[in-house]
């Protein structure tokens, strides 16, 4: 019976994995085919990989775009993690009526479609003289109600006894945060890092508006301009997409260990 259940679980997970991976495999195969073969739905490895790569390199400056994207994603991720976890911790551990009200208010900010605040935001960064800089791209989302909310909800299961013990040991409130909360919440930080990195790395609308010159553009902007020509070359687009996707996967690989080992025991 137990065997049967295990087999069932594997069957279910294999099915889910195949469905999830399918587009990814298709993308990798598409990379090796010509545009018209891709549109005909060819599902076998072709011989156009080098062709596509060469054409892509000729058409775009992927190196610069990757660098721009990386700067934004890395600074943005560190900033967001620090600021949002601070707030999530503060709102949950030191609860008070005023803070609860403030938090409720902050939540409203994530409910506004970004397109509707874009114009005032654009004016603001123009006034500050920061347009066309990574700062302009990172700042508006360096703390989000979304991430604060995520940390806050996770903090609910944070064992407060640890804080009490820390106070007894003479740690200050900030030390409690950096020395006890942060290490204990590693799995939460890991999940937040994956999601935040991905959001910055893929962010499109605001970088499009805030960045102005060709050399400042991020990867998604470059890929998007490839896909909109009168006669888009899907072979080239597939190569560009694979290249853009890899860093997010890499980050996931690096951080997912936290979901295996991150058992609470480590700080016990």
């Amino acid at each position: 019976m137990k065997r049967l259940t295990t087999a069932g679980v594997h069957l279910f997970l294999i099915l889910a994995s195949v469905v999830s991976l399918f587009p990814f495999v298709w993308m990798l195969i598409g990379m090796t085919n010509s545009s018209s073969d891709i549109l005909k739905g060819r599902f076998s490895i072709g011989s156009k990989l080098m062709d596509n790569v060469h054409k892509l390199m000729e058409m775009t400056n992927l190196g610069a775009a990757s660098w721009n994207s990386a700067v934004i994603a890395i600074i943005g991720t560190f900033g967001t993690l620090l600021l949002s976890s601070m707030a999530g911790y503060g709102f949950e551990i030191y609860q008070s009526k005023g803070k609860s009200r403030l938090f409720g208010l902050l939540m409203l900010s994530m409910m506004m479609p970004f397109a509707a605040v874009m114009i005032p935001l654009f004016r603001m960064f123009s006034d500050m003289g920061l347009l066309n800089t990574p700062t302009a791209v990172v700042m508006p989302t360096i703390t989000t109600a979304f991430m604060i909310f995520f940390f806050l909800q996770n903090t609910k299961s944070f064992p407060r006894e640890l804080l009490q013990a820390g106070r007894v040991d003479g740690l200050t409130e900030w030390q409690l945060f950096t020395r006890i909360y942060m290490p204990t919440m590693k799995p939460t930080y890991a999940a937040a890092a994956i999601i935040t990195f991905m959001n910055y790395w893929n962010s499109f609308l605001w970088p499009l508006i805030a960045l102005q010159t060709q050399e400042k553009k991020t990867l998604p902007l470059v890929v998007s301009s490839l896909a909109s020509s009168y006669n888009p070359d899907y072979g080239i687009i597939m190569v560009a997409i694979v290249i853009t996707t890899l860093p997010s996967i890499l980050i996931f690989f690096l951080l997912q260990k936290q979901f295996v080992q991150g058992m609470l025991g480590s700080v016990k």
Partner: protein
Amino acid sequence: MAKKKWLSVFVLVTMAASLLAGCGSSGSESKTAEGKEAGNSSKKKVVAWAWDPSFNGAALKIAKELYQKEHPDFDLEVVDMAKADLEQKLNTNLASGVKEGLPDILLVNDPNIQKYVTAYPNTFADFTDKVDFTKFSPYKVEALKIDNKIYGVPFDIGVTGMFYRSDYLEQAGYTAKDLENITWDQYIEIGKKVKEKTGKYMTTINPNDEALTSILLQSAGSWYITPDNKGNFVNNPAMTETLRVYKAIADSGIAKPVTGWSEFVGSFNAGDVATVVSGVWQVSSIMDAKDQSGKWRVAPIPRLNVSKAVNASNEGGSSWFVFNDSANKDLAMDFLAKTIGGSSEFYERFLKENGGVGSYIPAFSSEAYGQKSDFFGGQSIYRDFTKWSTEVPGITLGMYTQEAKDALKNELPNILQGADLTKSLANIQTLFEQQVH
């Protein structure tokens, strides 16, 4: 103690912020450095926004080379964006009133011309006296004219043709002659025969795409909206006939349903359809299927059964604008006027190098436009296309084309399911008027 820690966090955050600011200032530094450099070599740089590096971006590069012969100190930077991205960025920039970051030259899709000029008054430069517009196809100039001023330089056109597979049509018993000057009803009959004899579809149909209805309307000199921006759905014989033909094509079983651009291109690349009714720029996608060389030809498009309808129309096309507030306004205008606005050489090279067709009539008699294409069985396709382009009826595209298209799209499923056409058209008219009130 606590204070100290608080301080250190503060310092950390300030550091992060200054790091960010550092990136920022280094960015602007490099920008000014560039500007200085340009100043030193006394180069005057003009910036342009365009959306297809292998097409309109490439055209600007040809224009730059031509212009530099006379003006060696001229320089041009092209910023490439996807078309939708460009429109988004432009609207945000203009609506916020921020001039910073706008280019000198802008590529505008023809249906957007009136929208931009009206929504953002005094933003775009008046070209009326800068270019000899009599040298361009009249319908193209008509699109740029607002209150008797002409707001840009005409660029590429989308004069339509009926691309067809001569092998399939031959199998079905048709020659090139049989496809000249036909009506859409005749087209459908031919399609049925083709389906019967070859098993291939005659064409594709995509209810989410307004390309076909737009082509049909313009071929009869009509449009979704009237020149004074009212809905043009009721009491418009061209509209009624267009939708009748559309439904007839859908009902006849000769059209392969497709749901997007890639599927559409895939259908003819894979040899699934016998004809493609589309703008001249489709040539490059058709020629992508190298194995089909020699099998394609182009004929004029079929005609609607209403008075004034012709066997010619247009799909897409764009024009160049210059910003009134641009620091390099005069230079940018002169650059466009001397090249895209008045150089036969430009259009010859644009055709040869990028397959782009313009509406500059003096270029039509050039050797480049007369070249025979082996892919199209030795047909001088560009000669034919340019001949048809002079027959395209001129229409005013108006401000609310997209709103009107969406109102039509909303009702189209009902029309295809056989709803009463007069009633449906009245519904569309009402919906449109609600949208633009």
